[in-house]
């Protein structure tokens, strides 16, 4: 594909021909870009070890809070216990029972959610900014005195089993779990959802012990963004969290194993009207000098709508609704992944086109026009993602949790601006090559094994 994608460096695009209109109108050029607003952070490390970072953003009378606690552990029972912990941490504390805690949150105009992945436990909240002190009071109460009442744990244990059953009936979940096992065999990153029998055997005492071991301030990160006075917010945080002390118990953090190589893994789902395709491979971390080039390579391949893969298998061929590739960053490694759900009858052709586009990325350079497009997209969407209180809070939590900072984000514009076509080609050759990736296809094996087997080595099914 040729054409378009004029960036801010160019004047107005030339008028173009129209089949239907005698008079053609030019697409307006971009005007001078607004200077990105400087974001000022206030920061304090409390004596307990919690790092508190505050940004004043008075756009609406709200405040966003993120509390990130490192949670990576190699213990075999960690997955199950941490899953049950995240379901029950809000069901009772020294000062609240489950209902009164939820009532308190509503009165603060607030929401409090618990997120969990292999790397971290994340408490995310929003509230009216005038209620920051009360909100941090709730946070403090939860982290320092969650009590995991027996009856709540047994009730949530049964619900967790039902939720896992529901989740495992989703083809996307089946596919992601299968890919995870290949990307990180035998490692917490590859575990997926807990096993039901292990959930059923987990007790309140075990969950309480996990909280005691790992929900500790040392290494934790508290982000506050909103209509607040930073110095005051820091004082409130320090006062509120004074009772939360101690360091985390020692954790075995297992090294990430090699990807399990092999043919495309076929997972049979009889009668499936679509095939859920997932591919994955390793990627560069954001600390790597070559990362900006890889970020742009991903965008050019399939990381945005106007990318080769999406324009091919969706806008040209109509094989799928939402194909997308992505770079994800975990503490131990970053990964590159592809996801598309395609009609069963075009599974073979869809994989063929996918390999074609990956192969092109890995063996031929992208055009200067493509580079200009993905670069501008990367820079512009970065501004959009931090234009709200919630977006900025989550971005900060992700950056600081990975050992980066806002300065990294600010300088990232310049890094993106400096990337060349050759640099994109070099990283694409290494990370986007079909031979660098492993894949999973969840679908009707009777109908897709044949066509797939003519294109790639297939295992399973």
């Amino acid at each position, binding site marked *: 594909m040729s054409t378009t994608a004029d960036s801010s460096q160019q004047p107005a695009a030339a008028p173009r021909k129209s089949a239907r209109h005698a008079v053609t109108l030019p*697409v307006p050029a971009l005007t001078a870009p607004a200077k990105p607003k400087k974001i000022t952070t206030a920061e304090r490390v409390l004596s307990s070890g919690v790092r508190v970072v505050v940004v004043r953003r008075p756009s609406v009378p709200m405040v966003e809070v993120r509390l990130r606690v490192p949670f990576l552990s190699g213990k075999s029972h960690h997955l199950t216990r941490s899953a049950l912990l995240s379901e029950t941490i809000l069901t009772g504390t020294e000062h609240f029972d489950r209902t009164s805690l939820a009532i308190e949150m509503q009165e603060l105009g607030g929401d409090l959610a618990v997120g969990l992945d292999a790397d971290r436990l994340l408490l995310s909240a929003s509230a009216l900014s005038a209620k920051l002190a009360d909100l941090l009071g709730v946070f403090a109460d939860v982290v320092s005195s969650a009590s995991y009442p027996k009856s709540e744990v047994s009730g949530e244990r049964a619900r967790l089993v039902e939720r896992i059953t529901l989740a495992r009936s989703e083809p996307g979940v089946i596919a992601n779990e299968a890919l995870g096992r290949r990307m990180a065999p035998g490692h917490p990153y590859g575990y997926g959802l807990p096993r039901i029998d292990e959930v059923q055997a987990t007790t309140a005492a075990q969950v309480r012990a996990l909280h005691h071991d790992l929900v500790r301030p040392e290494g934790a990160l508290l982000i506050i963004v909103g209509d607040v006075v930073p110095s005051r917010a820091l004082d409130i945080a320090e006062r509120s969290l004074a009772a939360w002390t101690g360091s985390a118990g020692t954790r075995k953090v297992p090294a990430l194993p090699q990807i399990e190589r092999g043919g495309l893994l076929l997972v049979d789902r009889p009668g499936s009207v679509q095939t859920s395709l997932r591919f994955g491979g390793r990627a560069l971390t954001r600390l790597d000098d070559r990362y900006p080039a890889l970020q742009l390579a991903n965008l050019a391949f399939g990381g945005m709508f106007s990318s080769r893969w999406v324009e091919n298998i969706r806008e040209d061929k109509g094989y799928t609704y939402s194909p997308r590739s992505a770079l994800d960053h975990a503490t131990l490694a970053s990964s590159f992944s592809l996801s598309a759900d395609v009609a069963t009858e075009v599974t073979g052709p869809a994989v063929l086109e996918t390999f074609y586009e990956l192969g092109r990325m890995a063996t031929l350079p992208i055009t200067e026009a493509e580079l200009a497009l993905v670069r501008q997209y990367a820079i512009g969407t970065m501004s959009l993602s931090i234009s709200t209180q919630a977006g900025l809070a989550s971005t900060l939590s992700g950056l600081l949790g990975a050992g980066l900072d806002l300065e990294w984000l600010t300088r990232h514009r310049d890094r993106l601006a400096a990337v060349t076509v050759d640099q994109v080609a070099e990283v694409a050759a290494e990370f986007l090559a079909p031979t660098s990736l492993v894949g999973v296809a969840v679908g009707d094996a009777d109908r897709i094994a044949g066509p797939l087997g003519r294109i790639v080595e297939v295992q399973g099914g």
Partner: protein
Amino acid sequence: MPTDKSTATPSPRRSAAATLRAPSFELVHHTLGNGLRVVVAPDRSAPVVGIAVLYDVGFRSEPEGRTGFAHLFEHLMFQGSANLDKLEHFRYVQASGGMFNGSTHLDYTNYFEALPSNAFERGLFLEADRMRSPRITEENLANQISVVKEEIRVNVLNRPYGGFPWLVLPPVLFDTFPNAHNGYGGFVDLESATVADASAFFDSYYAPANAVLCVAGDLDADNALELIERHFAPIRRRKRPVRPDFAEPELAAERRATVSDALAPMPAVALGYRVPDPGTDLQTYLATLLLAEILSDGDASRLQRSLVQSKRLVTDIGAYLGTFGDPLEERDPSRLNITAHYADPGATDKVIAAVDAELARLATDGTEPGEIDRVRTKFAATIFRELDQVLNRSLEFAKFQLLFGDASLILRLPSLLAQITDADIRAAAARLVPSSRAVVELIPGANA
């Protein structure tokens, strides 16, 4: 019951809701010569703009034999226009560092961009160009029919609980085609769509006078209006279609139906209730809105406490207004949904009885002290949070202008909700009786 928390951080317990004020946004209104209604909402706090165009047509208005056409047409609006080839719309937005999308609802269809502010005029051009003339060809139509079929497969046909309850409740709760039919569309209908159908649909419903444009964010109001005049005023004026009355008589008795889902591992049930008309009786409608929050917002809500925590009857339960969970995006007739998933296939009647018991308790005893206040505080805060995003501001102001003739209504919701009383909530609960609802039970087929 709440424990005594007097030793925790003390906080004043007076009604926060009464004192909550929405952040103030300057709203400038204008109507172009061709009838396009314009709302400008400047706010210079971040260097980004939101552009939203809402057309007053949704899947309620699509013709019989063409189910899913409003949504298919939404896809076609991205396929090129008077001055843009296929793929160019997407590329111009993304090459500006922006994001785009569109979505089809019961009563309207929206198209929108979030852009760095230096792409503002470009965004206006892109929207004006397709309002002028989308470029719909046989090839693009065939391509997008395929894409939409894959969208329906991934969201409905290939997954458990797909389209539950939004596709299964309407045909039981309503009798007329506009209200009852499948808005995603049947494959036979989608495959029958023609370029001529698309032209006719565009001519009927995509007139400038049938649309609202809202721009928000880092812009100057005068300059924005000048640019809007420049790009949109030359679009030919066309007749604004007359919107039919979609009202249906109230139900005479409870209606019941079952659907089977071969992919679902557990049963589920959906209750759909007729609700008051928000256009003519907003006060009563807002009481129903707060009632839905009282029923299922968070762990302190009635249904969570009773059915999830105490009786342990269900895995999950939720109550919400409207088709997709936005309580203020539909005209009459709309509905209140209560849906639950549970493990025991024999428990359906017990689940429904427990819901009825909670509704009866609210209708008879009313709310607990503070219960309405905390729910409306939470609801108001949710609105503030929504309005923090420039794209949401443009979408919400445009939606309230289109459906209610008043973009600023969203900013006045906190004060309107503050007027809802315990008696209003009791009355709202008393209306949710079996004879005003449809019940659809989902029979699971997986693991059977």
